[in-house]
């Protein structure tokens, strides 16, 4: 059987001919919140995992395993790759939405939310360390930045959920005054 590529890299990358992104060694707060940095690290992760996955499957097939079984055996890399692709797609969608907004407070808060999404995704992903995309110090920087973002989002938390525009009748009393809602009125 012909060993044609399983997936064409063009299907997964916006800029197939761009060089592999290079990440700065020092991750400052402004770097971590920079959309270009976030995009670069998400693209780097995805591309590297794709290369590892195709390489592993090719090796297994080269040893005589069927394509289906090779996929099964490589399920962990496949899952990591699937997740990397999905998270990159979501980040890109958020950035597109953000770019359409006029400069102002809404755009600023959305930027905080976007950075929270990007950094929490990175913080929870062990493949960044396993495959060397980030160093140990880098991971520590990401973790501290997530903590800072929590503090900065805190004053906006109520307004952000109010923005969902969910009618009161759709929400349970626990979203309002739970104590009052459970008081026995006859007392």
């Amino acid at each position, binding site marked *: 059987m012909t060993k044609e590529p399983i997936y064409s890299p063009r299907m997964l990358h916006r800029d197939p001919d761009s060089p592999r992104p290079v990440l700065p060694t020092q991750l400052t707060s402004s770097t971590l919140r920079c959309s270009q940095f976030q995009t670069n690290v998400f693209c780097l992760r995805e591309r590297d995992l794709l290369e590892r996955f195709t390489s592993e499957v090719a090796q297994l097939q080269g040893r005589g395993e069927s394509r289906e079984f090779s996929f099964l055996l490589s*399920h962990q890399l496949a899952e990591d790759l699937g997740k990397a692709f999905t998270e990159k797609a979501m980040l890109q969608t958020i950035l597109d939405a953000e770019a359409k907004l006029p400069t102002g407070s809404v755009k600023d808060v959305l930027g905080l939310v976007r950075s929270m999404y990007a950094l929490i995704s990175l913080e929870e992903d062990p493949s960044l360390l396993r495959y060397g995309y980030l160093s140990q110090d880098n991971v520590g920087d990401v973790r501290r930045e997530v903590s800072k973002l929590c503090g900065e989002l805190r004053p906006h938390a109520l307004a952000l959920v109010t923005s969902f525009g969910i009618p009161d009748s759709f929400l349970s009393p626990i979203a309002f005054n739970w104590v009052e809602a459970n008081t026995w009125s006859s007392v």
Partner: protein
Amino acid sequence: MEGIDHLADERNKAEFDVEDMKIVWAGSRHAFEVSDRIARLVASDPVFEKSNRARLSRKELFKSTLRKCAHAFKRIIELRLNEEEAGRLRHFIDQPAYVDLHWGMFVPAIKGQGTEEQQKKWLSLANKMQIIGCYAQTELGHGSNVQGLETTATFDPKTDEFVIHTPTQTASKWWPGGLGKVSTHAVVYARLITNGKDYGIHGFIVQLRSLEDHSPLPNITVGDIGTKMGNGAYNSMDNGFLMFDHVRIPRDQMLMRLSKVTREGEYVPSDVPKQLVYGTMVYVRQTIVADASNALSRAVCIATRYSAVRRQFGAHNGGIETQVIDYKTQQNRLFPLLASAYAFRFVGEWLKWLYTDVTERLAASDFATLPEAHACTAGLKSLTTTATADGIEECRKLCGGHGYLWCSGLPELFAVYVPACTYEGDNVVLQLQVARFLMKTVAQLGSGKVPVGTTAYMGRAAHLLQCRSGVQKAEDWLNPDVVLEAFEARALRMAVTCAKNLSKFENQEQGFQELLADLVEAAIAHCQLIVVSKFIAKLEQDIGGKGVKKQLNNLCYIYALYLLHKHLGDFLSTNCITPKQASLANDQLRSLYTQVRPNAVALVDAFNYTDHYLNSVLGRYDGNVYPKLFEEALKDPLNDSVVPDGYQEYLRPVLQQQLRTARL
């Protein structure tokens, strides 16, 4: 077809004697025999049937629960069951009820906090069910923070009584099981106020309802708090609310073993050391950890059997499809849960030893190990209940769409289990207590004080802080010293990193608050180390049976290497292992899955659960799933009629285009 064992082929693959593994799981041959006998007794009694639990209304469900409790009491007397057997009977009835709190909280509270005279009077009534009691502590406004309770108990020297009062809405008692409709009495926790001073939280025995007609006593407002999560589950329990309008009780109904109030209203701490309450704490948490392994094992049993029955994809040339248990992804999700069930079983056994050890030390007035025992049990309760709750839901997902049906047994199992993550201490709050203990212990490193118990590894800080794993091939990860060193180094380095970061803050408490997320993770790493080390310790014991220890060894290293994979960021970021060594661990984990695969069904058969107890069509012992799914569907009340009620009023007018004239 009826009665044929469709999983016999799977059972024949076992490389160990399942009867021997049953003894290991039960803990002893005696425990196995008692449990097995009582389980069959319950399963064969039609009153204890529960497969229609989701088809009853709330009132019907509650009444049937009262009936089962009365029947159980009757059988206990008729069969002269002892305390152990009675406990197993209630366990296998498997329906949350007021009796759980009467025996599980009300009676122990009086034993631990009542004077000998109070015990003689009240335990006598309670043990014969002449009164029914509950444990009224949590309030609307305070659950985890017991010290913030608002209910008051003010001594009245003129009448020699305590006045129990609910000063605000948030002071209403809320959640106590058995309170809503059943209990005649309660141990009520309230602020003790005498001679104008607040002495903190104490327990008071309060009668709530008349023993003549069960009506609430004057100035007492009591009822059920409402429907709860799931079909069945805790909706058979009357979790209740309770409010006092200056209710009076005799002075001698304050539990006075640890402190008392004299006739003159003077508060007198007794010479009984307060540390004795820790004994109860360790015991309660041990039962919670044991419950975690029970609940997780039920879910794993169902998911494993169904995974061996269910086939999906993988057909070649029109042939039979592949059993989903043969997929590596299914194994990667299911086998770590199987390993966790055994791991929690064994750490639960170790906690039994810890309980006897703590009790002996308390008897000798030795309080030196109490801080460690407290932190250790708090962390293990949090770790095991969190993992079990997640694991039960994962097992439901592992069963695909059919897992969503109530008759799969998994939705109700999750709903009835998940409160364990909150009661007896919120899981996150408990891990913070562990974190505080770890920070204190780290602060003592270098002071010459030698840490003991589960923190003894910190005595080897010099080595653990700089060591590198010597792993060179996948099999090296089956060396207990290698695994322990990796987990110890990870836990220590995480704790030390937190301590260093804490020291950068001028205000210690502010720093603690700022680093809460990291501290919780350090606490979890410590607790995981405890579980791994106790599983390894268990393997060093004599365990009889052909091939038994081999399978337990496989499960032990599946548990450890799965955690290593899941928390790889911790191990890599602390430099405990290299990415290459992590990759070798992954290879070994995959190899272990392959070795466990033929033993999977037998390993869950070792739990010895009757089909009645499992209450799951998907997890039937005989693997006869699809015919039984159909049978259960036909029993649904919606199938009582071919044409549904409401057709004439709400469907036919739509179909016949007669909406304008229809009476909706």
